[in-house]
């Protein structure tokens, strides 16, 4: 008699835990042959609310980590992903390499985009990038893991926390499991599965969210959500249909959700 497999329950990833949707709703996911894989949580607006609370709570602590420390943790995520690479699809190697790429950025981007500004007076004047805060991320379609990693990693590399609306729930929740075992503090990345169309407006209008990445939004959704984001003047990254996940990422992936802080101090005796 063949052994009955133990199936995995795919839940949401919020605040480092894997809760079911507050709404109790699920939707079935099938594999490429149409066979049933799992019932996946279908997040509601209240899950958006909870995820934003978790991301907000994690924000100060994550931002306060040194770049070196964030880099170590991101690299650890790459290690964990490597260890579980068999669970992912064809883009897993590129996704691992992308984690490694961003792990190395964590203690460098400030040197690239920061500056000592030569002002005309007896002042030291420094500009440094700081995280924007909680960022809502709409993961791209068509690139289940590499696309997801390519939008999430840069956001957290610079010290933001995020609420990700995933498109491929299995890849996304499996990645969440990787993150949950990677020393990444709970709440830094929160993953919601379900219908982006249902969640998008709640995330875009949420006052605690400081930025949104509309990469995975349709043009109509992007326009609507950008309009909602204007209510609290969120930083918005518009979708770019031409974005090639295999190409070297643009620096703007790192800088869109950073704030330049300029500090002045007199120089005197």
């Amino acid at each position, binding site marked *: 008699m063949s052994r009955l497999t133990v199936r995995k329950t795919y839940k949401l990833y919020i605040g480092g835990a894997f809760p079911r949707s507050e709404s109790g709703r699920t939707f079935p996911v099938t594999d490429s042959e149409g066979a049933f894989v799992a019932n996946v949580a279908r997040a509601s607006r209240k899950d958006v609310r909870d995820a934003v609370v978790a991301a907000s709570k994690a924000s100060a602590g994550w931002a306060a980590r040194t770049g070196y420390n964030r880099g170590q943790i991101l690299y650890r995520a790459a290690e964990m992903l490597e260890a579980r690479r068999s669970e992912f699809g064809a883009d897993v190697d590129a996704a691992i390499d992308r984690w490694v790429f961003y792990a190395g950025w964590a203690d460098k981007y400030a040197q690239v985009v920061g500056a000592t500004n030569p002002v005309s007076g*007896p*002042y030291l004047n420094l500009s440094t990038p700081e995280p924007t805060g909680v960022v809502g991320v709409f993961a791209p379609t068509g690139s289940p893991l590499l696309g997801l990693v390519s939008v999430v990693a840069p956001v957290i590399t610079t010290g933001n926390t995020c609420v990700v609306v995933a498109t491929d729930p299995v890849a996304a929740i499996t990645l969440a499991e990787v993150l949950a075992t990677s020393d990444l503090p709970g709440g830094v990345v929160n993953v919601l599965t379900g219908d982006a169309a249902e969640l998008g407006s709640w995330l875009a209008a949420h006052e605690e969210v400081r930025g949104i990445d509309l990469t995975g939004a349709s043009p109509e959704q992007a326009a609507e959500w950008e309009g909602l984001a204007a209510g609290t003047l969120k930083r918005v990254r518009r979708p770019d249909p031409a974005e090639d996940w295999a190409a070297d990422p643009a620096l703007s992936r790192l800088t869109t959700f950073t704030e330049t802080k300029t500090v002045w101090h*007199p*120089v*005197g*005796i």
Partner: protein
Amino acid sequence: MSVTPVLDIGQSEASLRRFLHGLPGVDEVGAKARAARLGTRSIKTSAKAYALDLTIRMIDLTTLEGADTPGKVKALCAKGRHPGDDAPPVAAICVYGDMVPSAAEALAGSGIHIAAVATAFPSGRAPREVKLADTKAAVAAGADEIDMVIDRGAFLSGRYGQVFEEIVAVKEACGDAHLKVILETGELVTFDNVRRASWLAMLAGADFIKTSTGKVSPAATLPVTLVMLEACRDFRDTHGRQVGMKPAGGIRTAKDAIKYLVMVNEITGPDWLDPDWFRFGASSLLNDVLLQRRKMATGHYAGSDHVTLD
């Protein structure tokens, strides 16, 4: 700042140090910016006329040269009494101690004060007895104002008590003469030091605090005067005694002098806008003020031959 009795503060090195180091710091850039901005005030017409005459009345007309002679001092005194063009007399004539008798003779009955520099001016490097003898001799000869120098070496090495005691001793030697304490700010360098030295001098009994000997560069500047005026203002607020202020050295033009008066007006307030509370230690300043006065009176620019040399 809490009100602490002067004697308690001066009681020991430690309490003096605690007090002086507890004074608020001075940010150099901010202090200079404030002084520069006050310097942009535009003083015209009636305000200028008032400021020019007040400047003359505040001048300690000074000669402090190795080549000074009774003749030179007497000529200076004559100039101080009658600067020309019905200008008011100056506040004082400032000379070395040995020149005091000549000045006293020339100024008799004028009401002009006789200031003598003392205490091994300008370096202050002499035994305490010499400094006190220097002071007493000048007073005995007729000086009613003594401009002493502090021991900058002692101050810079943190021996505040020594500086304090010396000022107390000189003050005693002055008797009824007014004591101006020269900090020589050019050697103290930082504004934090200037603020501490100002308080130290006032706590020890100075009637005036004065920036410089004129022998060290930089001498008086607007920012250093700003810091000292703030000290005068705060000292009166906390200790109830008003102390005068004298910038000296480097103030050569009426335009500069007016900037100082603006500063007095806006930092300490008009209580100090009086020769009893503010003086300029200067020599060539007087003639520039006289030229400006002539210009205001005649409406055309004045020539140097129309004011006297000394």
